[in-house]
């Protein structure tokens, strides 16, 4: 069981690097969708015995992270007629390197934490840290609002991976909280995108600086 979880998490880590390195927004969305599907499988692996709750959570995650939100983002991409290229503030290769560095640092950091023995063997904590960092990197180094939405999505994915640790202890609260949080976040940012594309005819967050005092 642990080996399959770890295999899944390695794919998640590789996807993180792919997201940082890709130059196309469509690819970014597809990557996030695949990551969402992988995360959707995870609750099933974490629960040793058959129970309805992890199945419900897994299905909800698969539907939301794997299809609904990427679908919304693809629709936004079509409707708002955004140029299909990522506009980075820092170059793609440097961000990838930073991401790799962050992943290494996460693994180093996780080994120093005093975790419960059943969690220490898995890659859950380093993968979670690394995914949160990837989300942050996407948020800070990309200009277009839509790539920021994806950044938030990845950040939430990292928190979701952390939530796996608490699945046994307090399953319902954590998972629903994460999903709700995510949904609201996407909602709000979609509205922002809508406003930006209508009012400013641009999805460039640099324009938001005019809100500065």
């Amino acid at each position, binding site marked *: 069981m642990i080996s399959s979880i770890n295999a899944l998490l390695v794919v998640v880590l590789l996807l993180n690097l792919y997201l940082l390195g890709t130059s196309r927004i469509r690819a970014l969305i597809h990557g996030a969708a695949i990551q969402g599907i992988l995360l959707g499988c995870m609750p099933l692996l974490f629960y040793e015995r058959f129970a309805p709750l992890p199945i419900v959570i897994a299905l909800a995650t698969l539907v939301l992270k794997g299809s609904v939100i990427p679908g919304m983002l693809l629709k936004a991409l079509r409707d708002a007629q955004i140029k299909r290229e990522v506009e980075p*503030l820092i170059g793609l290769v440097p961000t990838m390197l930073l991401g790799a560095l962050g992943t290494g640092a996460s693994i180093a*950091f996780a080994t*120093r934490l005093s975790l419960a023995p059943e969690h220490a063997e898995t890659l859950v904590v380093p993968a979670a840290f690394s995914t949160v960092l990837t989300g*942050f990197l996407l*948020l*800070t*180094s*990309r*200009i277009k609002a839509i790539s*920021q939405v994806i950044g938030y999505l990845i950040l939430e994915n990292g928190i979701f991976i952390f939530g796996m640790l608490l699945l046994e202890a307090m399953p319902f609260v954590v998972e629903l909280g994460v999903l709700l949080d995510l949904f609201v976040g996407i909602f709000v940012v979609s509205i922002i995108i809508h406003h930006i594309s209508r009012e400013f005819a641009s999805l460039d*967050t*640099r324009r*938001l*600086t*005019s*809100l*500065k*005092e």
Partner: protein
Amino acid sequence: MSLWLILTALGLMAISGLPGALLARASPAGQWTAAVLNVCASILGGVGAFAQLLGFDEPQAIHASWALPNGRFAVGVDALSALFLLPMLLVSALGSIFGLAYWKQSEHLRTGGRLRLSWGILTAGMMLVVLARDSIVFLMAWEIMALAGFFLVATEDAKPEVRRAAFVYLVATHVGTLCLFAFFGLLRFASGTFDIWPATLGEAPSWLAGALFITGVIGFGLKAGLMPLHVWLPGAHANAPSHVSALLSGVLLKAGIYGIVRVAGLLPDPPSWWGATLLIAGSASGILGIAYAVAQHDFKRLLAYSSIENMGIIAMGIGLAMLGRTAGHPEWVVLGLTGSLLHVLNHSLFKPLLFFAAGSILHAAHTREIDSLGGLAKTMPRTFAAFVVGAIAICGLPPLNGFASEILIYAGLLRTAAGGGGSEQWVWAALAAVALAAIGALAVGCFVKLLGAVFAGAPRSPRAEHARDPGAAMLAPLACLALFCAVIGVAPAAAAGVVASAVAAWDPAAHAASDSLEALLPLSAIAAIEALLLGACLAAGLAIYRWRRIRSWIRVPTWDCGYLRTSARMQYSGSSFGQALTLLFGWALLPRRRVIAFEGPFPRPASFASEIPDAVLDRGLLPLCARGARLMARARKLQRGPVQVYLVYVLGALLALLLFSEW
């Protein structure tokens, strides 16, 4: 039973403004419901409070669990709480009646509903402050009270000076709350429980008791407005609507005094510096407060500074009671605390009276400048009569109530100074007695200036000339308060008897050990003299009135020493009357003058202007804050604008925290 009555009153007060907030803006019904609810609540609560004070009912408490961390809803009432409830209920009800005419809904569409909502919540919050028997409940009530007070001060938020005063109030009250958090935290540490009043310290070390006293006095003193913690008080009182000023000055300050009384009762034998500190702080507040009052040009600011003076007198009484506890002289405790608590009651009668009267003047003349009024005694005789009653009472002159409470504190101070029994306390008491005498004299000077400039002479502006007495809704509260002042003035023994149960609740041992109040001070003889004096005053007034009715009058101008053309501006102004006293206290007031004198054979027009900036706020705190703001402006470079940069800050903070926790 009494507690339930009081809690019902609290609930009614809290919702009194709600119907008005839900009704249409133009409808006057909200105002009337608020006033009716307020009055009903006052009657209910008053019955409960009197049942406690007169000993018909035992002290009670309710403990209920609450879905909050560390939460327990604990309220209770004893005689001390009941005594502080009385002014809250009375002034709140009278103020809401006064507001019917003073702050008409039809004239104040935007602010009226908000004012009444905050009014009810403020009263309910203050009631909960004195009822709270758990630290958390107390702090919550304190905060409700502080915020409702802020919204009341900021009623006319379209004016920049109102916003400024409200902001200063908000900062000051939160600094006070911070001190109270420290106080209750330390109290929890010392006593091991969140229960308060009585909070037993047990075997607390002296540093802890000292820290408790200091944080408590600063926290509560900020609300009570003791110098130099008074920074918020003059601005807030001057810029709030007048009935709100009456509520703030008459009642809100007393919440701070209530806290100081409770803090003073923490230890059975407090170190002597506790009492001495309160005596010195009280004397300083008293003298400087009244000195600032004399120098003011704005009559509401003047009344506000005079509140600081009165809070000083109350603090002196509490200090004396504490010295009595230290030295083991129960009669000092009884005289000091009875005088102090009676002054709390009295001040909450005559100060709202003065603020209501000031509101009537403001309503009629639309100015707060003393030097553009004048001659109002002829055009506003009823307001004038009420103002005179208030002024005599606040100066502590017989035959009104201010005299009764001040003479108790005098008697206590003199007894301590004369027969201190070789203890070191007599020095402080002797100094404080001199200070109290000086305060009395200065107060007379201050109010003679105010009465003379506002009511005597000829009107200095057309506004003053056309001012007229207000209607019944505004005069009735004035008459009611004036009547109470006179009643306590001629029956001080009865009032002191009501207060005695509160003194007994504060220190039962001293109350039992001391001689009766009558043996310490012949109150009934004083009452007889006062009744005679009051009777003589009334008789003289009646005689003059009849004499003026019978005789026919010819109006001629005052003899003007041969000047050809006199004008109203040639009269002594309030500032010139107060100048002698202002110069005497120039070292503390630091007045700013701008004089352009006549010079040379062909002089330019001359002018003179003076202002009295508040030494602590305008010369100390505001420049300090401005400097701090300039320093902080350098940090503005961090605020760049792009979302990405802010996210980098978040990431940096997160990583720093992670590293910190690892390290």
